[in-house]
């Protein structure tokens, strides 16, 4: 039952906010809907923890430990982002960058976007998964171009077209999957149900699935932001409003990777080889290395953290590609850490850029003077994402690298160099932003930094101590991914 709440609340929220318009308190209503979604997601998670995998709605929805954890994460970040966007968007409006009509679009699309992601996560049907992924893209295209500046339009266009092409390839992969499944399961709606497919995966035609996986990986991989299909990502992150950057980076990329992983489980079962894993490792490693070196050359702070997202998604893809219990566990952990940390960073960056009136790092200085909380928030977030202990990112990166040393020693130097380069460049750029000298006056208002510290607190906690139920949860999910 909870599942219907989880899906229904954001979609209802989208419609309601579209109708509600500018009658006031729209940001609060937005946050309220997100909170309701979070509560429903928590209830769903509690039920899964208690009862195990759940197949509801005549098999149309399937929730196991893998996706319920993503559902919870998505709902949480969606809620905190809604909290953050309330003051942020108000100030953007005061600056004259937004109008009421656009805010209405923003709130409505935001809820629809969250709803689409949750649908993608919970559906059992690989076709619906595709549909909702595309729906999530469409919901955000107009959000990326919300400022209507030439650059934001260009970014949104690139986002639309590249992800459109990617998703079209994924559709072809889905068609091939159905084609293989149909012979075993017979035609009709059930042949695309993941649970059904999972049951017969060993009988699926290997050649077809091989090809299908290539298409699915390239297709959904475009959305994950894997190099060389990443070029939409920095643009969309840099030019869209900051809350949108936060949810794109923190959530959409995860959901896309989730789609890849669901396919990988099937393909592994059918092929019995490491083909899928190797492909993912290749793409992942390439993304890590290329992104790390591109970070060095960035001048725009949001772009820089967008490339950092590519790097981390590459790392997660690499971890999942290695497979095995530890690597998958690390991958899931890193997914969580990255979502929480990266969205926290974007919150802090959002306030910083709003204050400075620019996204160029050279022009942002001395945040610690203008607002100490903001300065520390950005600094701690940066330290966390760079994998400094005791933050959780360290734990997951450590696990990934040690596993890589055992299983694929050749990859370790690349990973270490890339992480080192990323560390040096990001830290070197953020440090003067926080501690440099500035003439700017103090912030006239208190930024909404609760979400930042909430996220960072969670990341810190998970770095020191993973609660046993969460660990069990991860372990189950890792086992599911072929651990």
């Amino acid at each position, binding site marked *: 039952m909870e599942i219907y709440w989880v899906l229904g609340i954001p979609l209802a929220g989208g419609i309601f906010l579209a109708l509600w318009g500018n009658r006031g308190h729209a940001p609060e209503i937005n946050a309220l809907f997100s909170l309701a979604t979070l509560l429903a997601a928590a209830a769903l998670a509690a039920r899964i923890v208690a009862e195990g995998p759940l197949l509801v709605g005549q098999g149309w929805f399937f929730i196991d430990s893998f996706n319920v954890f993503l559902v919870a994460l998505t709902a949480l970040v969606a809620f905190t982002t809604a909290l953050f966007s309330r003051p942020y968007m108000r100030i953007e409006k005061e600056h004259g960058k937004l109008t009421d009509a656009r805010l209405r679009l923003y709130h409505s699309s935001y809820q629809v976007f969250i709803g689409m992601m949750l649908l993608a996560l919970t559906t059992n049907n690989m076709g619906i998964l595709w549909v909702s992924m595309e729906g999530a893209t469409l919901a955000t295209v*107009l959000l990326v171009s919300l400022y209507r500046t030439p650059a934001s339009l260009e970014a949104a266009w690139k986002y*639309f077209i590249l992800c459109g092409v990617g998703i079209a390839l994924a559709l072809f992969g889905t068609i091939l999957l159905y084609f293989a499944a149909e*012979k075993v399961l017979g035609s009709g709606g059930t*042949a695309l149900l993941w649970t059904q497919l999972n049951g017969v995966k060993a009988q699926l035609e290997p050649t077809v699935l091989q090809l299908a996986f290539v298409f699915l990986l390239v297709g959904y991989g475009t959305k994950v932001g894997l190099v060389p299909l990443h070029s939409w990502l920095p643009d969309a992150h840099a030019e869209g409003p900051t809350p949108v950057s936060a949810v794109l980076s923190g959530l959409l990329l995860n959901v896309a990777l989730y789609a890849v992983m669901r396919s990988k489980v099937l393909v592994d079962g059918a092929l019995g080889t490491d083909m899928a894993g190797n492909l993912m490792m290749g793409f992942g490693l390439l993304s890590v290395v290329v992104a790390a070196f591109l970070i060095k*050359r960035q001048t725009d702070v949001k772009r820089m953290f967008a490339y950092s997202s590519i790097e981390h998604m590459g790392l997660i893809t690499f971890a999942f590609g290695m497979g095995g219990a530890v690597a998958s566990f690390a991958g899931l952990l890193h997914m969580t850490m990255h979502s929480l940390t990266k969205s926290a960073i974007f919150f802090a960056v959002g306030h910083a850029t709003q204050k400075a009136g620019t996204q160029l790092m050279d022009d942002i200085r001395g945040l610690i003077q203008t607002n100490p909380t903001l300065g520390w928030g950005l600094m701690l977030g940066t330290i966390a994402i760079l994998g400094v202990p005791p933050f959780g990112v360290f734990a997951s990166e450590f696990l990934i690298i040690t596993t890589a040393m055992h299983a694929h020693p050749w990859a370790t130097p690349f990973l270490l160099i890339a992480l080192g380069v990323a560390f040096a460049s990001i830290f070197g750029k953020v440090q003067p932003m926080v501690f440099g000298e500035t003439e700017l006056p103090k912030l006239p208002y208190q930024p909404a930094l609760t979400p930042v510290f909430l996220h960072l607190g969670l990341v810190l906690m998970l770095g020191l101590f993973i609660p046993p139920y969460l660990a069990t949860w991860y372990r189950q999910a890792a086992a599911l991914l072929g651990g």
Partner: protein
Amino acid sequence: MSLSYPLQVVNLLAALLLLISFAMLSQRRVVGLITLFAWQGAALAASTAIIAWSTGQHHLYYSAALTLILKVIAMPWFFYRIVRQLDVNREVESMLNIPTTMLIGIVLVIFSFNLALPISQMAGTVMRSTLGIAMACVLLAFLMMITRRKAITQVIGFLAMENGLFFAATSATYGMPLVVELGVALDVLVGVFVLGIFFFQIRESFESLDLKHMEKLREK
């Protein structure tokens, strides 16, 4: 050749689809491109309907109707309107000259025929051999997307790609389950709607639909 006549007609329509894909690749005018797109949709709808009739797969009638309404009537009409309203420059600008594009196209066709061969042999449908054509259509549309400069041509390329995918689904498996097909159609519809808004936004800021203005964001 021991196929029944309806299926021979389907084969002919498949060939026609490929021919239209090439014609789109060589088309120099935006309006011509839209017309060709409508024709492609018509060929697609016709072939889907014939398959539905000859194999008794009734859900394919819905797909055919959906294609007819969306891709032959609604979208071309919408595009014509946009072209008229925005007064888009008639010439399609291509980044590669057209003969080169065509040559690449031929290579893509050979590639996709080869790729499709092992798969189509496994298919249980009567018109499996058209899978290669469907794949070729997808790749040709993709080629059109990456070689064209205008926003509207890129979108038509995208939709043509979707046509190819749709045809692939029909030829390999008699189409996807109806729910999925409806979802896809909905997505495409919303996508085109979003694009309509988008065109106006682009037009407002750049006073043109030419994407060469949109080259500020480069990988640095």
